[in-house]
């Protein structure tokens, strides 16, 4: 299994806050060593590797994880707690999981 972590540089050149938060959680939770590659999606450069991966996998949010299995199957995760649970067999607390869901689904603001 090969895991790619894609994080974003915003159009103004600053790093994405959510991406930094997820990276900090990966480190705090002890999962950072499970990441094989970290790639930048630079909004100032549509040809940056991360932007191309987003296009290829039809992802419109960052950060996201690409998980390539030996079987050839590929899964993409935009919600950190789901990635941790389903790929790393780990767990996150309820508050973080709920916040991850809301972050990834702005339409839920209206529930």
């Amino acid at each position, binding site marked *: 299994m090969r895991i790619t972590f894609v994080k974003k540089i915003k159009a103004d050149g600053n790093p994405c806050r959510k991406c930094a938060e997820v990276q900090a959680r990966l480190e705090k939770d002890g999962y950072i060593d499970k990441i094989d590659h970290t790639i930048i999606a630079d909004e100032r450069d549509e040809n940056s590797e991360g932007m191309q991966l987003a296009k290829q996998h039809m992802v*419109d949010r960052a950060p996201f994880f690409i998980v390539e299995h030996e079987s050839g199957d590929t899964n993409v995760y935009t919600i950190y707690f789901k990635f941790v649970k389903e790929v790393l067999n780990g767990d996150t607390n309820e*508050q973080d999981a709920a916040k991850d869901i809301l972050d990834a689904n702005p*339409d839920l603001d209206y529930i």
Partner: protein
Amino acid sequence: MSTSEFNPERLANEYDSQSPESIIKLAFDSFDNIAISFSGSEDVILVDMATKIRSDVKVFSLDTGRLHAETYRLIEQVREHYSIEIDVLSPDTETVQDLVRTKGLYSFYKDGHKECCGIRKGVPLRRKLATLSAWITGQRKDQSPDTRDGVPVVERDAAFSTSDNNLIKFNPLSNWTSSQIWEYIRTNGVPFNALHEKGYISIGCEPCTRPVLPNQHEREGRWWWEEATQKECGLHSDNLKK
């Protein structure tokens, strides 16, 4: 029907141009373990439509503890008007106390609304949905100009489904506009939130909701201080389209 036999993609196409009442009927015909999410706003018409189809509808509301008095009054009015039970869900006391103790009562103005929403709304909602096979929401396509994927009238709920529970979400009002909602409210004498008479369109928690001016989008009445960072997580669509 079990959720594994249900084909949301096919039904989303089939029902996309059908009335909200038809979509609610489809939901009730397909699932017994189903409930309506009622926020105390314009989604009140879901309750009106649903109770005309069957009397034993299950309704739940998320009481964040920060709602307007007018919203609490509407929830109570709806309970009495339709003679239904409303499951009013509260956040965990301890978690809210931790947030307030460490970050104060208005942390969302500085840190963004998602942390507070996660605690006061997200956790209780996630717990509730874990007990259901399907739910019905008042989400509409025209509510957020930033929503790229649209809101299908029925979908597998990718956010809240788990390995044990393939949750289905119905959005019967997806294709309706605000004017259609209000025509229905007036025509059918549906009780509504008194805040709408004071210029509010979208209604959430009191500190995070404000009235808007004529022709302002309803989104501008919610988390207005976050405008610059709302697209924080989005990958700029203009770039991705190229």
